[in-house]
């Protein structure tokens, strides 16, 4: 239970096409993450899966059944929102139990489901409080708890962590990963934070302007990007894009990750001057201005001393470089 199937799903708001044909299979129990830049249509796609937004054309299937016209409450899904969206007039207990109450479940069963979910998230001390009496992190845990109570086929998360501070975000991220293991449920998770995407996902769907740019496991996208968009989007600091012709390679663009550029004071293929150095303790990022390729980033592990305005030479690791054609598609050799 819990497989999702999208075939040629499109969405337009009036004359504006927001989702331009998405095909996607999510297997039962999979943790699937949608990433992409702001405005690329991640939330819209998720809301279409939830049934909160009509599908302009194409099919949405859950467990094989077409649900295009099924109302959200009948799709056996649960959704966690960025803004928590707890009912302000209900206690935590009633917030969590509302969906089951609406579905007409018996009181004892509701109480048991709420107890089980609040146990998993250690929400017991908060059950009698109202949302206004909770901190941001507690509210988000309640919102996740509210989703668990329903035992849905499909969990949908829309940037659930982006209102939390850094420490809490890490903590909650780990909690969500644990829940996925324990519940073995299908989860679809929207984020624009690639650390969340890389750490949580079984499979990542990279969206660009309403189209799927690439689908794959996190390391697949990292090690084998299909186009410059995915290559530039996954990985931080961003991949360097060099002019292939200047280096005697085929194609238009040569992509190389900052950690795969070798830096040397003596000799190398690309000369340049250091414009900025960032010391992060565990790693050092060096920014180098070059005449032909513009600003390039080199990522070094550990602490290194480099001075601004120093002249250095860079050499790409030929085994780790990617070549792309003029349209940005990968050239595989």
């Amino acid at each position, binding site marked *: 239970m819990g497989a999702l199937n999208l075939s040629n799903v499109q969405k337009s708001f009036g004359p504006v096409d927001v989702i331009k044909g998405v095909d996607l299979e999510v297997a039962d129990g999979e943790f699937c993450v949608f990433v992409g830049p702001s405005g690329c249509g991640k939330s819209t796609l998720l*809301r279409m899966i*939830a049934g*909160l937004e009509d599908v302009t054309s194409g099919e949405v299937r859950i467990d094989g059944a077409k649900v295009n016209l099924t*109302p*959200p*409450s009948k799709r056996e*899904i*649960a*959704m966690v*929102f*960025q*803004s*928590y*969206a*707890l*009912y*302000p*007039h209900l206690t935590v207990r009633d917030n969590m139990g*509302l*969906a089951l109450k*609406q*579905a007409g479940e018996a009181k004892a069963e509701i109480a048991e489901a709420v107890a089980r979910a609040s146990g998993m998230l250690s929400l017991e001390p908060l059950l009698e409080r109202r949302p*206004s009496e909770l901190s941001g992190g507690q509210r988000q845990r309640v919102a996740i708890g509210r989703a668990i109570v329903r035992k849905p086929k499909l969990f949908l998360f829309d940037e659930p962590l982006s209102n939390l501070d850094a420490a809490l975000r890490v903590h909650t991220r780990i909690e969500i990963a644990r829940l996925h293991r324990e519940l073995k449920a299908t989860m679809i998770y929207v984020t624009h934070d690639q650390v969340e995407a890389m750490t949580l996902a079984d499979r990542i769907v990279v969206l660009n302007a309403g189209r799927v740019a690439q689908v794959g496991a996190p390391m697949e996208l990292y090690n084998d990007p299909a186009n410059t968009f995915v290559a530039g989007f996954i990985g931080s600091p961003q991949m360097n894009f060099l002019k292939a012709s200047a280096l005697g390679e085929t194609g238009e663009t040569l992509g190389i990750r900052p950690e795969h550029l070798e830096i040397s004071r003596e000799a190398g293929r690309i000369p340049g001057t250091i414009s900025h150095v960032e010391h992060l303790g565990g790693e050092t990022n060096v920014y180098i201005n070059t005449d032909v390729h513009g600003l390039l980033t080199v990522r070094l592990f550990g602490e290194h001393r480099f001075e601004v305005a120093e002249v250095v030479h860079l050499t790409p690791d030929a085994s780790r470089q990617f070549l792309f054609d003029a349209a940005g598609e990968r050239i595989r050799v």
Partner: protein
Amino acid sequence: MANRARTSLPRTAAAHAILLTYTVIALFPVFVIVINALKTRRAIFGHPLQLPGPETFSLVGFQTVLQQGDFPLYFWNSLVVTVVSLVFVLLFGAMAAFALSEYRFRGNTLTGLYLALGIMIPIRLGTVAILQLMVATGLVNTLFALILVYTAQGIPLAVFILAEFMKTVSDDLKNAGRIDGLSEYRIFFRLVIPLVRPAMATVAVFSMIPIWNDLWFPLILAPAESVKTVTLGAQIFLGQFVTDWNAVLASLSLAIIPVLVLYLIFSRQLIRGITSGAVK
């Protein structure tokens, strides 16, 4: 004054001086009405601004009011008309505002504009047509006729204000309700209405006063004795040649009380709504 760092004494004093001056000016006519209602006829004309003293004090106006005509009935009529009209204005106004702000449908903007027209065009322009309509439907001399007219009069402003407020209610909250299986009515009544309560109170206060004070429509649509409102009832003391000022002032003083009570109820709601929203 809770925050010393942000307020200085001269500034606070100036602000209070301005507010107090305004309050005095605004309340002065009411004050004059109330003090003169408690004076003899001679004193009203001799020294209209004097407070009632031992010689000038008199309740003759109130006695006349309570004896002549059926003032408790007029009060009751006014109250029924005002409260029922307000309930309709708030209910239908909020429902229309929700539809306009929440759903995308063809003609949405046009419907909004059409309703907004009602704010700019006074309903009295249509008096003749309204009267014909009421005669045709046999509603002349009923309270229901007044209620219908006042509801129509109040809805445009209510829709306009409430639609703006409802746009600010979080979409996520409504969507969470939809996923949990709440009907659109439950979402409207349980999630949206409580969050726009301050706006509802504002609309209530703004709609209430013109309804209570109106003389025009009661005079035209419901002049019969059994359905007279207070403002119309008070007119019997205003004659072409003789006017019983004691009675007029007394009835006006009495007419203030229910409005005051309604206002207190709504403004409590208003303040509660504002603070509960601010503290979150």
